[in-house]
């Protein structure tokens, strides 16, 4: 098997290995940490045999890791045949993965820090199959190969000739980094910390008044543990904010004929491409603390494997359309992705007034509206969320009502989409209207599916 440095042959059907530096990129950070540990152990050792043994263990682990990743590189090969991506991998358990490119939901290029230093990137093919756990992962290819592979996979996914060059993307939107940082710091969890501090302060202040030394001692203990808890909480919050800033830094959206291009990341760069037809739902959220500033977040959902959620990969696969934007920008973006769908709803779509008895707090935010192509619903009091579903993507429609709702002659309507993260909910509709809507939406969805072919 040739050790091709360029991946061109793989795209024309010859088995190829991944980039020779992949093992290094894959274990880069772990290896560095282990080496550091080994060096510190050896330099700190006073010729005591125990230290040397520890250093040997560290070295052995490092060597094992290196051998394992080299072996995994040696036994992994891939190619594109016709409109199928094929990956063979595994030493003990051989795995042959086949990804039909017509079913591709999105293609991502991800470059973690170590890979970026080496000029490498990973190509991730996300398909909607339910069979196996993995996405098609090619870790790693050189940067220009990754771009070429992505362009070709997308061309094939769209049923075009493999040689079709990647169409240029028009810049659509760019998220302000300052606002991103500010928005990441404005999390609802801060309120919790504030409440804890307030309660703690009241307790600590109330405790020692007019009491003896022992009680004062107890108050001091409480204060110490309170401070520890708050510091831990702040640290976790800071970490969370740092992670979201790191993930969404320099967020730009491009608009290309084959789909939306998303670029983001500070240390780890991600380039995502989402074909337009694959968008299952769009959601606009206004978290509580962002509302004074008029900010909102826009997310979109593509169909994905059910297991992805459990593997903690959901966060990476959740496609953000904008981590933070002004309401105006957010609505404009929604209009770009879902042309013709409104991101705000008239009160005409509101449920009947008696729904107030069932949902007194969120009543003024509830709304639902649809036309021949889109269904838009709005829910939530603390975090108002607007969900926009293309009718051709509707998977099933559900109607439910409990005793209270039936007494009020109301019913909850839910529309499921293949994106597994949210449903469009229209709670507390008039029962007769909801029943009629079920049939109407079913017919419209059927027609929309027909037209979209």
């Amino acid at each position, binding site marked *: 098997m040739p050790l091709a440095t360029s991946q061109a042959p793989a795209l024309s059907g010859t088995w190829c290995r991944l980039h020779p530096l992949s093992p290094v990129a894959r274990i880069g950070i772990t290896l560095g940490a282990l080496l550091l540990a080994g060096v510190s152990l050896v330099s700190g050792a006073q010729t005591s045999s125990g230290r040397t043994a520890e250093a040997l263990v560290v070295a052995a682990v490092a060597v094992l890791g290196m051998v394992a990743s080299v072996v995994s590189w040696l036994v992994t090969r891939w190619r594109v045949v016709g409109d199928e991506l094929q990956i063979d991998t595994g030493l003990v358990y051989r795995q042959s993965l086949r990804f039909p490119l017509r079913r591709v939901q999105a293609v991502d290029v991800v470059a973690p820090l170590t890979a970026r230093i080496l000029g490498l990137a990973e190509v991730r093919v996300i398909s909607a199959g339910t069979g196996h756990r993995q996405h098609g992962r090619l870790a790693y290819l050189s940067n220009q190969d990754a771009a070429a592979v992505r362009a070709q996979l997308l061309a094939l996914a769209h049923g075009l000739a493999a040689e079709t060059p990647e169409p240029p993307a028009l810049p659509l939107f760019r998220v302000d980094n300052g606002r991103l940082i500010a928005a990441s710091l404005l999390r609802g969890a801060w309120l919790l910390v504030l409440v804890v501090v307030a309660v703690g302060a009241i307790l600590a202040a109330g405790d020692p008044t007019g009491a003896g030394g022992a009680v004062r001692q107890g108050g001091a203990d409480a204060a110490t543990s309170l401070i520890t808890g708050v510091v831990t909480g702040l640290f976790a919050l800071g970490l969370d904010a740092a992670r979201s800033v790191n993930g969404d830094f320099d967020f730009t959206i491009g608009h290309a004929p084959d789909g939306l291009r998303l670029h983001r990341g500070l240390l780890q760069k991600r380039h995502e491409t989402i074909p337009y037809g694959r968008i299952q739902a769009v959601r606009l959220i206004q978290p509580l603390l962002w509302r004074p500033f008029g900010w909102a977040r826009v997310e979109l959902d593509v169909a994905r494997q059910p297991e992805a959620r459990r593997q903690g990969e959901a966060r990476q696969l959740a496609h953000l359309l904008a981590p933070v934007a002004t309401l105006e920008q957010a609505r404009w973006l929604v209009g770009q992705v879902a042309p013709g769908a409104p991101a705000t709803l008239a009160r005409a779509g509101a449920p009947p007034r008696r729904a107030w008895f069932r949902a007194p707090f969120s009543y003024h935010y509830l709304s639902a509206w649809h036309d021949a192509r889109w269904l838009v619903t709005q829910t939530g009091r603390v975090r108002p969320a607007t969900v926009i579903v293309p009718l051709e993507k509707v998977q099933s429609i559900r109607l439910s009502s409990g005793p209270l709702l039936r007494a009020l002659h109301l019913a909850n309507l839910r529309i*499921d989409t293949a994106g597994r993260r949210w449903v469009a909910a229209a709670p507390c509709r008039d029962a007769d209207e909801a029943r009629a809507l079920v049939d109407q939406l079913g017919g419209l969805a059927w027609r929309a599916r027909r037209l*979209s072919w």
Partner: protein
Amino acid sequence: MQYRRPSPRLWLARQAVLGMASLVLLVFLGVWGGLLWGGPGGLAGIGAGLALAAGSWLVERGRYRSWGYLERDEDLVVQRGLVFHRLTVVPFGRMQFVDVTAGPVDRLFDLATVQLHTAAAATDARIPGLRSADAAQLRDRLATLGEARASGL
């Protein structure tokens, strides 16, 4: 357009299970009451057990009666629920797969449950208590319809 109902055998099966459970409950309550307060206690225990059994029988009957499904031109409608009504509409073109399951009690009564799966996790279209032959037939019919009308994600 008449909703089709699960087989009456489902009601038989439910009653059988309920009967067994009630019998155990009756014996337990009777003995317990008898041990605590003697003869009248035992009678009271049996009375309470009977009341409980009658109550669950009523609820079960309501549940059984609430099930219904309807095959229309383009979709399948399933409704259920006594206290909490639920109605689910699944377009044939959206069905990913159909499975038929039968537990030990189901098999004793020659029954099976047909479950529809779509690409959405939340879809909960399930039709219990069909005769196994009917279930197999329905499954095949749904699969054929789904194939004919299938559309990409």
